[in-house]
């Protein structure tokens, strides 16, 4: 019975044949966190993606674009569920987004198994750069270790001899602390991984750090936790006593809440608001115009790039997305103008890029902004490319 049905439906499909090979529109699934305190990040990413679409007239390769936004609720299992829905129910052509490394790791298999191209515009667990790299997974952000590695270099430059590391106990947190440890030449006198995301009380860890009397403390706490950490850092009396070095803890989103607590605290980043290239100037200016009262963060910048990356691939393949190899090659070319200036992919689809030192300063109106102070490393490659089977 089933074979007869199959035969009948195949005949129908074949008759409809050539028409279905051509796309009528480009469907993009977008997964991020739109609930809870970290919703600000998801909103920034969405805003940037929408801005990118506006800039390209809401068309990629001449075809209209449809975006479906889904909320992962900050949970790996929900992210995976939503990814499955986007692939199976909405039948999207691309999936973009993913703030959190653990959510990405849980959701990857569905994309790879179904040969759906996934562009992560934030999460960068070492697995996707190394042993689990895939022709279908691309990143417009970085590999988690790269940014703290840059910070490690900077700490060396500053003559820091001993450091205490604090971060959250999940995929990205472990990568971050590991990244610093791989480049920092001094002695690491202590490491603390805290329960994520529940633990927002860092008094125990700060007390331990204080007891060890290190030259510096390195910290990684994205989103709301970053605000809490800086507040408690000040409350514990450490501010002014032991300097802080950060990655992904201070950004345009958390800065308005951290206020003066963040003044003078350095961070490493591959993109800062004031990078002097044309694409970036347009991005930041138009973002501020379209969303008054808000400034884009690096999450948004990476997402803006992701939109342009996808558009470039669609244009190069003239909308013929069924030829997966061609799409892959087009994506690998990265033929678009990135807001961070130079941009090209390594063999494992992780960007090769510069890392800058950013510091919060007060501008002439007394507002807190992030300023590029120096370039720490140029054309930095992640350290997992050798483990990837793609050469």
């Amino acid at each position: 019975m089933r074979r007869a049905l199959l035969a009948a439906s195949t005949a129908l499909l074949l008759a409809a044949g050539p028409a279905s090979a051509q796309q009528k529109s480009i469907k993009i699934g977008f997964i991020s966190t739109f609930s809870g305190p970290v919703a600000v990040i998801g909103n920034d990413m969405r805003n940037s993606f929408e801005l990118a679409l506006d800039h390209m007239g809401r068309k990629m390769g001449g075809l209209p674009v449809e975006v479906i936004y889904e909320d992962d609720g900050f949970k790996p299992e929900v992210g995976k569920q939503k990814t499955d829905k986007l692939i199976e129910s909405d039948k999207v052509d691309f999936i973009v987004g993913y703030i959190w490394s653990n959510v990405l790791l849980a959701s990857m298999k569905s994309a790879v198994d179904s040969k759906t191209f996934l562009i992560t515009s934030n999460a960068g667990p070492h697995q996707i750069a190394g042993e689990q790299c895939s022709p279908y997974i691309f990143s417009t952000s970085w590999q988690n270790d790269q940014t703290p590695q840059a910070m490690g270099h900077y700490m060396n430059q500053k003559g820091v001899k001993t450091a205490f590391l604090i971060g959250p106990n999940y995929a990205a947190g472990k990568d971050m602390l590991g990244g610093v440890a791989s480049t920092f030449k001094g002695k690491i006198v202590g490491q603390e991984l805290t329960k994520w995301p529940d633990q927002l009380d860092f008094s125990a860890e700060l007390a331990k750090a204080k007891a060890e009397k290190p030259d510096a403390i390195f910290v990684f706490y994205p989103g709301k936790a970053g605000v809490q950490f800086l507040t408690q850092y000040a409350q514990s009396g450490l501010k002014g006593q032991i300097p802080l070095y950060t990655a992904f803890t201070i950004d345009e989103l958390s800065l308005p809440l951290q206020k003066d607590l963040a003044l003078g605290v350095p961070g490493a980043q591959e993109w800062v608001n004031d990078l002097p290239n044309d694409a970036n100037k347009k991005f930041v200016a138009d973002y501020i115009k379209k969303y008054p009262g808000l400034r884009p963060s690096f999450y948004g910048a990476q997402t803006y790039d992701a939109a342009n990356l996808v558009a470039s691939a669609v244009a190069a393949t003239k909308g013929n997305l069924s030829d997966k190899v061609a799409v892959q090659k087009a994506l690998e070319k990265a033929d678009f103008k990135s807001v961070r200036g130079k941009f090209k992919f390594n063999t494992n689809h992780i960007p090769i890029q510069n890392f800058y030192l950013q510091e919060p300063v007060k501008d002439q109106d007394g507002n807190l902004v992030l300023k590029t102070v120096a370039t720490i490393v140029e054309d930095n490659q992640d350290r997992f490319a050798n483990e990837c089977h793609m050469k």
Partner: protein
Amino acid sequence: MRWTLNLRTMVVVLLLVALVLLPMYVELTGSRFLLTLFTRIVILALAAVSLNLILSYGGMMSFGHAAYLGIGGYAVGMLAFEGVTSGLVQWPVALLVSALFALVIGALSLRTRGVYFIMITLAFAQMTYYIVAGLARYGGDDGLTIQKRSQFFPPLNLSNKIQFYYLCLALLFASIYLVWRIVNSRFGMAVQGARSNDTRMRAIGFPTYRYKLTCFVIAGTLCGLSGALLANHTDFVSPAMMYWTRSGDLIIMVVLGGMGSIFGPLFGAVALLVLEEVLSGITEYWQIILGPLLLLVVLFARGGIDGLLGKVRHG
């Protein structure tokens, strides 16, 4: 079961037929997502059926039933991680470990009753949750991806979604039948008697503690099976599978569907999950309807869906 031709019977038959024919509908319309959704419904209905046995018939309100979902799921996940992908090893292990946990937890919890029983089953479930969340090797809170589904002998291939669906459906029907047989047996009558008056049953000579414990273990084992199926379905396990709010979801399914009815859990699972899908498409605030709906069901529609469909019958 007295198969009288009333509304309830008709709905049951229609639902069963629809479930059996679903894959063909999916094949015709190409909506694979429907198959995924209903596989999930069938798997969770199995879990609800197991809960129904102890909740409605045994009067044991376990707020930690989701723990067995996690235990069954992680048995499969951990073994797969270590390279043991044969279902013939994984599934018996899942069932055995679930049974063992149920035995220990039940033995201790059944010494209490009422709200204390609720709290202690909750406590044990949370403990299991924390144990699993504390296993760094298996991902902890981040969860564990299962790269290959449980392997059986060909032609049985769990990666084939249609085959997998029918397997789950068959197991669901088998468990419903099992529960029906238990409930209508002398053993089952004794357990139900103990629910209304434990002292009286003991006075007559029934070892109620032992009977209840047996029921508890059977329910836990069945739920462990559901967990193993769930792990295969999602290719992913995480401690969240057994958080106490998940146990709450299972209880809602049983109550919504109608306590004390054989097909109630199935109604409840279908209703809750379909409602979730449909409502979340309409508004993102759908839970604001679900909340008071539950309240209303508790206050006014004690028999749940099954009760609404016809007179509530036991068995």
